[in-house]
């Protein structure tokens, strides 16, 4: 945000703008920048998801819209959704029904405040960055539950309930596993965690020690569950619940759920990249091949993109888990493993130095 504030100062007569506005404008501009970036990425992800899923099933996927391999398919879909009729069921709770998609999207969008895109490009480097992400991301449960409840549809309610149960449970191992990163860094700030991994691949937390190596995978599994994607897509299980909590949604409101889901995928990938894969640090130490320096936002976006690809890949590799299997995996496998990992990292931090 500082860099955007610097840029705004270049506008003529900017110093004569009222102080309140001077404080407010950088926030507005940076949020618009992040929003535009995410919206573009989401459009790309939807196309990518369709292509990846198609090719993994020996199909072609969208091929017409736009010409080259249907690159404009998601743009066409977005326009279609914009023009669609906005239906609110007669028996729905109108206020909650209208509010829910925006709550879900706000939760996804607000987390981007602390995602470190580069050394200077971070909206706000909170000193409790990770905690903030967990707090805000949990808001999505409220939105999903709102949507499920307000739709006045049994499938939507089932989806909302399942989603709440799933996200709340999987947040526990995810939060504990993050301790394995926080302990060696000694800070909750995202920027400091990224800086602690500077200087090449061997400094990334995945490759620091065996505990953080496993921690990365545990965290990844937890996040896949948190963004409700296959094999953990109980809340929107097509074959059981039609479409889960967003059955009754059409047009723009449905698009917001979609946007939130894919924004969450990218968010989760970016956070995993920042915590374990070195964030905006390059693969090589900075003093090697200095002419190869790539801007930080590009590096972290590529890393997040790779993780998003793995999420899509998992979707077509695995069938959906049963609810009891899901809970088994969370409470009986991931939670004990994450506790052991934290103990191991703590042991290393105290006795290994």
């Amino acid at each position: 945000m500082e860099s955007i504030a610097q840029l705004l100062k270049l506008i003529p007569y900017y110093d004569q703008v009222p102080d309140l506005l001077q404080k407010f404008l950088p926030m507005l501009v940076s949020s618009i920048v992040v929003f535009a970036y995410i919206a573009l990425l989401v459009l790309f992800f939807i196309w990518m998801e369709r292509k990846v899923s198609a090719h993994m099933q020996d199909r072609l996927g969208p091929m017409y819209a736009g010409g080259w391999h249907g690159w404009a398919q998601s743009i066409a879909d977005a326009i279609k959704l914009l023009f669609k009729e906005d239906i609110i069921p007669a028996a729905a709770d109108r206020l909650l029904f209208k509010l829910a998609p925006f709550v879900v999207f706000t939760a996804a969008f607000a987390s981007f405040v602390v995602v470190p895109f580069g050394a200077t490009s971070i909206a706000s480097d909170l000193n409790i960055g990770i905690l903030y992400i967990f707090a805000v991301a949990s808001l999505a449960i409220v939105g999903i539950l709102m949507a499920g409840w307000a739709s006045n549809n049994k499938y939507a309610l089932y989806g909302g309930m399942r989603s709440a149960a799933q996200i709340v449970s999987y947040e526990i191992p995810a939060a504990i596993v993050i301790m394995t990163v926080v302990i060696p860094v000694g800070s909750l700030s995202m920027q400091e965690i990224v800086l602690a991994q500077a200087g090449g691949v061997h400094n990334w937390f995945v490759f620091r020690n065996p505990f953080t190596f496993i921690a990365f995978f545990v965290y990844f599994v937890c996040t896949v569950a948190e963004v409700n994607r296959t094999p953990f897509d109980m809340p929107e299980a097509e074959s059981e619940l039609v479409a889960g909590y967003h059955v009754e949604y059409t047009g723009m409101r449905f698009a917001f759920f979609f946007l939130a889901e894919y924004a969450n995928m990218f968010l989760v990938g970016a956070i995993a990249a920042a915590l374990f894969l070195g964030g905006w640090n390059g693969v090589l130490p900075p003093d090697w091949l200095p002419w190869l320096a790539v801007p930080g936002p590009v590096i972290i976006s590529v890393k997040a993109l790779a993780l998003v690809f793995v999420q899509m890949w998992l979707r077509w590799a695995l069938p959906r888990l049963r609810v009891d299997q899901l809970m088994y995996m969370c409470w009986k496998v991931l939670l004990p493993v994450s506790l052991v990992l934290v103990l191991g990292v703590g042991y290393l931090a105290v006795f290994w130095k």
Partner: protein
Amino acid sequence: MKRYFTDIGLGITTTLHSMWIAWKHMFVPAVTLQYPTVKWELPERSRARLFNKIADCIGCGQCARVCPTDCIDIQTEKRGKDEPAIFASEGTAIKLRTYVFDIDMTLCCYCALCTFPCPTHCLVMTREYEYSVYDKRDHVYHYAVDKPLYTKLKEAAAKAPAAQA
């Protein structure tokens, strides 16, 4: 306890295995045919739209009789003795004038039973399968070209009481 750890190990290995299978399929050429631009060539004897070569039709009505869905409607009249003799292409004399030969393709079940009794082999199933229309009445194909010479009066007489009632 042992079961617990073998289960975790199985979970990891089977996940990796299925991911490997999905990865391999990324590079398998797609089986998709880009339909409107690329079309699958149908087998020679595939059954789609019916076609009647009316010049060869002797109006025997066997196809209409055998049809399980009654989708063929044939009306004929005797040709006059003074009219010149005409023959189907394989030699059968055409003694009846077919003035109605309608096939309702919305009723057709594509069994091809009608094509087998046809003595002059003029009723055949073609490979043409793209004939959707906006109005279902367009699916009734009229093959007859001749006009009736003698039955017109009879038909009018038959219709008249119905009109009065």
